[in-house]
């Protein structure tokens, strides 16, 4: 059975409308918040600006690292949640289907229109996104640039592979790392993320 993204979107939208008395949204094993994409973009892009120009690459690395750790912990929570068991697990036939489930959850979270283009088990994952909020947010505020700007999705792509093919949680984070060879912020028609085994 293919992963039914619409079913997952429906579950997230309904679940995120449920709030408890403390104003917390506990869903898919994590605490969720809903806030403007403008905030996340301002944080990332201004962090890069504020750090010394000689450390711009380090800023990127830190943002990607934060996202990869987050993706690793978040989707570990997601796949161990009762919502996953109820809604997603029945659609999963192979280990690799989990990646399709993760991508569908990411779409449901409003991170972009993620499509898994290629998955070679334990080796390579290619995810394409036509409308990443990071690339769009960058272009809303800046000129076309020379490097990819979707730090969150880059880290998350690698985290998906870490969870499937890395050592058992929590040891497997950073087994993979991802590049973003194509990004709309660079003038490319879409953003593309490629995760492979880390070289270190």
């Amino acid at each position, binding site marked *: 059975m293919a992963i039914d993204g619409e079913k997952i979107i429906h579950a997230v*939208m309904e679940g995120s409308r449920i709030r408890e008395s*403390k104003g917390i949204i506990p869903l898919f094993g*994590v*605490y969720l918040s*809903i806030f403007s994409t403008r905030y996340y973009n301002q944080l990332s892009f201004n962090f890069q600006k504020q750090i010394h120009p000689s450390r711009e690459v380090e800023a990127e690395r830190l943002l990607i690292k934060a996202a990869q*750790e987050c993706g690793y*912990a978040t989707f570990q929570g997601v796949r161990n949640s009762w919502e996953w068991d109820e809604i997603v697990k029945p659609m999963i036939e192979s280990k690799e289907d989990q990646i399709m489930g993760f991508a569908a959850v990411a779409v*449901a979270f*409003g991170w972009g*229109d993620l499509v898994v283009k290629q998955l070679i088990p334990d080796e390579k994952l290619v995810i394409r996104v036509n409308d990443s909020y990071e690339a769009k947010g960058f272009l809303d505020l800046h000129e076309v640039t020379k490097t990819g700007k979707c730090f969150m999705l880059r880290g998350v792509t690698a985290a998906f592979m870490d969870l499937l093919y890395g050592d058992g949680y929590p040891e497997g984070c950073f087994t993979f790392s991802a590049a973003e060879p194509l990004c709309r912020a660079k003038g490319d028609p879409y953003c593309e993320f490629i995760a492979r085994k880390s070289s270190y």
Partner: protein
Amino acid sequence: MVKMNWKRELDRNNHQVVLSGQPVAIHCHHYNINLQKTLEDTLGEAGIQLMYKSTEEAAYHSLKPLLAQYEKLKTVKSKLEMFAILYQNCGLGIIHPQNIENGTGLVISPSSHHVTGWLAKHGRRNTPGCHFTCGWLAGAIEAIFGKPLGTYSVTEIKCKMMRDAECLFKIEEC
């Protein structure tokens, strides 16, 4: 009593999640707290200010059009009430404004996303840590009182991340 049609406000535009027509993202405490820690560890006070300013600006630009949409809300009290409901519905926590007059006053928060997330990931800290809420309150108060960004400053006096019983915020004019 403020009535907000949450089902209408929180919707989808294809793959986008929109709140009152504006793009939002759903993120979890792992990401939000990782971002905060990265900013604090790397930039120190400048990182805190970056988080505050980014939240203030985003809240201001999100809440101002919302007020225009709910034009029947005339009093400060009703506008504050709606913003508190919105804050809660967005999973950000609970806020109780206390005698906000001319934009200044106190706000109590008995629980929040960032407190829950920080304590779950890092435990107690020695300095106030609700920079997000400080910025959000500043942007919200500026939107309600029709003042430009940067008019008010919000300081956290007590913080649950430091194991105070609740978070307490003081809003002052800059």
